[in-house]
């Protein structure tokens, strides 16, 4: 077991990667066997991430060096710097890993029934597994160049999945747009990595953090990285690709592409807290992120209220919810250099932002799946053409209500808990920001009331008399996320103390991250 835990960082990447390449081969013989391999591979990945998480929460950060005599030996003998590929998994990385692995598993289960109606299932699952590899790799890597590589894997597989249903013109357009913005974003990231390499001859995050001087070039690299990952996160005003892409991605993959965006938020957080830390002008950078957050929250929700396409409505809410995370994280960064403010409310703001990542991945994932269930059954995403579906799709209705109440921050759901943490901490930083955040929550409720009223309530429409509930695997996929939402809602203290606060502590502890690779500072 101990050996499995030691090798789990690389296995969590290698197993879905191996399954991605096995899937086309097995798919040639049996689609059922292929489906089983995909689900087993993702279940094993989830297991590996969970045992890794358990060990990290008990004994601290894990370093895994590829090709070294001992995987824990980051810097070779007689070398001053790490030269091999290093995976560095702390509480924050593994927190994101849990989200990615869980949503990937739920999405794969959900997709089984959906893919029976589509062709190209083998390619679909290969891409889904590669997207999982990209996400977990991005979250576990301790090296900037590999961060770029995993970002590319994530982007290419995400774009192919978004444009998977090529019979729809808007799917091709959505996939193309995602590919273009991802390619430009990745180029900008590569340019920033080049700046670091040119200056310091280093690519390892911990080694770079140790020598970071915050020169003008470092400032430029920081801006490039924040904006590139901000665009991948769909923060306003770089958000416009998201509704085009999220609305056309096939069942199960929209939550995956959305969680891939959250992985980019992780990269942004890692760059700010670990690579730069207090060497940067924390106040300026914090405020830049806060402004991006407030714009995302407000513009995202106000545009969402106006939508009549259910998946575009949800996509704009995804943008809006990312704003909450940026707000919490931004306040934490703004007071990072002030120990008193950090202890008084900064840590709570960061924890609120981080807790909102997992909550949002769950309820936003669930809501995207319910939207796709409606499209699966009705053949339309237009809310104007829907009505009375609560009669025909009882379970989907219940899942939608759970997701809608959670995203709107209604107590006792998990969305309320993380929003409360953000409100109370941000209020101490700037009351106006907290008021805007609360207003956005009210508008979120208004928007989901509209979606619920349009799709599920009202008289039975004759054209939908024969509509039935979606198949069981789709219900199981939604059920997994709904159960997790209820659990997170009922036991927030357990979740915050077990996985959120350790993630916050590991982010703030820049010295610990550096010393685990570089030795004593």
């Amino acid at each position, binding site marked *: 077991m101990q050996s499995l835990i030691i090798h789990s960082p690389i296995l969590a990447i290698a197993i879905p990667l191996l399954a991605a390449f096995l899937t086309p081969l097995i798919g040639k013989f049996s689609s059922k066997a292929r489906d089983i391999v995909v689900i087993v591979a993702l279940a094993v990945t989830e297991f590996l991430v969970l045992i890794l998480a358990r060990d990290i929460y008990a004994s601290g950060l894990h370093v895994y060096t590829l090709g070294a005599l001992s995987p824990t030996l980051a810097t070779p003998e007689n070398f001053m710097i790490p030269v091999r590929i290093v995976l560095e998994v702390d509480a924050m990385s593994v927190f994101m890993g849990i989200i990615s692995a869980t949503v990937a598993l739920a999405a794969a289960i959900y997709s089984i029934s959906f893919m029976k109606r589509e062709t190209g299932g083998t390619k679909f699952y290969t891409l889904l597994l590669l997207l999982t590899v990209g996400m977990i790799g991005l979250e576990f890597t301790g090296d900037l160049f590999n961060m770029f590589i995993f970002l590319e894997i994530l982007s290419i597989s995400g774009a192919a999945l978004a444009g998977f249903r090529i019979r729809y013109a808007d799917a091709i357009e959505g996939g*193309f*747009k995602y590919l*273009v*913005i991802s390619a*430009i974003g990745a180029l*900008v990231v590569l340019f920033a990595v080049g700046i670091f390499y040119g200056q310091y001859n280093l690519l390892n995050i911990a080694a770079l953090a140790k020598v970071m001087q915050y020169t*003008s070039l470092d*400032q*430029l690299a*920081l*801006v*490039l990285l924040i*904006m590139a990952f901000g*665009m991948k996160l769909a923060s306003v*005003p*770089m958000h*416009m*690709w998201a509704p*085009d892409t999220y609305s056309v991605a096939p069942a199960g993959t929209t939550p995956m592409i959305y969680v891939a965006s959250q992985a980019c938020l992780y990269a942004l957080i890692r760059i700010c807290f670990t690579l730069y830390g207090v060497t940067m*002008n924390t106040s*300026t*950078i914090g405020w*830049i992120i806060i402004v991006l957050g407030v714009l995302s929250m407000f*513009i995202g929700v*106000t*545009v969402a*209220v*106006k939508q*009549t396409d259910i998946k575009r409505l949800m996509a704009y809410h995804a943008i809006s919810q990312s704003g909450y995370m940026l707000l919490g994280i931004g306040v934490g960064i703004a007071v990072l250099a002030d120990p008193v403010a950090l202890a008084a*409310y900064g840590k*709570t703001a960061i*924890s*609120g932002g981080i807790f909102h990542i997992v909550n949002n991945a769950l309820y936003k994932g669930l809501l995207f799946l319910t939207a796709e269930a409606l499209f699966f059954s009705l053949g339309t995403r237009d*809310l*104007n053409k*829907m*009505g*009375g579906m609560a009669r025909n799709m009882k379970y989907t209705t219940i899942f939608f209500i759970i997701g809608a109440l959670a995203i709107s921050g209604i*107590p*006792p759901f998990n969305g309320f*808990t993380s929003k*409360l*943490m953000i409100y*109370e*901490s941000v209020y*101490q930083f700037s009351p106006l920001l907290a008021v805007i955040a609360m207003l956005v929550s009210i508008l979120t409720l208004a928007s989901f009331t*509209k979606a619920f*009223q*349009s799709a599920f309530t*009202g*008289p*039975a*429409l*004759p054209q939908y008399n024969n509509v039935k509930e979606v198949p069981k695997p789709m219900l199981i996929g939604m059920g997994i996320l709904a159960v997790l939402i209820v659990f997170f*809602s*009922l*036991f*927030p*203290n357990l979740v*915050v103390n077990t996985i959120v606060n350790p993630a916050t502590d590991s982010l703030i502890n820049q010295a610990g991250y550096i010393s685990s690779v570089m030795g004593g500072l």
Partner: protein
Amino acid sequence: MSALSFWSPLVLLFSFVLLSLVVLIFRNRGEKRYKKGTAQTKIFLAGEEEPDPEKLHVKAHNMYWGFFEALKHYYGPTMKAHTGIINDYLLWFVSLIALTALIVFISG
């Protein structure tokens, strides 16, 4: 949950269950002469014909009309900015990089 406040969903859930029981008791003491499928269940007491189900349902694009009308000066330019053209998306991205770089360089 945090150092700043106390929150227990279990307390709220318990209160909700208790309140539901009270509601259920009141409901059971209500009118018992309700007959399904009779004139009692018709929408219009005057006997007017019910419109088609499609016409009874308030469509999504009709909801919050007053809200959008009141905020038309906000919604006009905001919706117009969402052109759907990828060149515009990248223009926002490049402009924002330039603006942010300027702010970061000036603030040091």
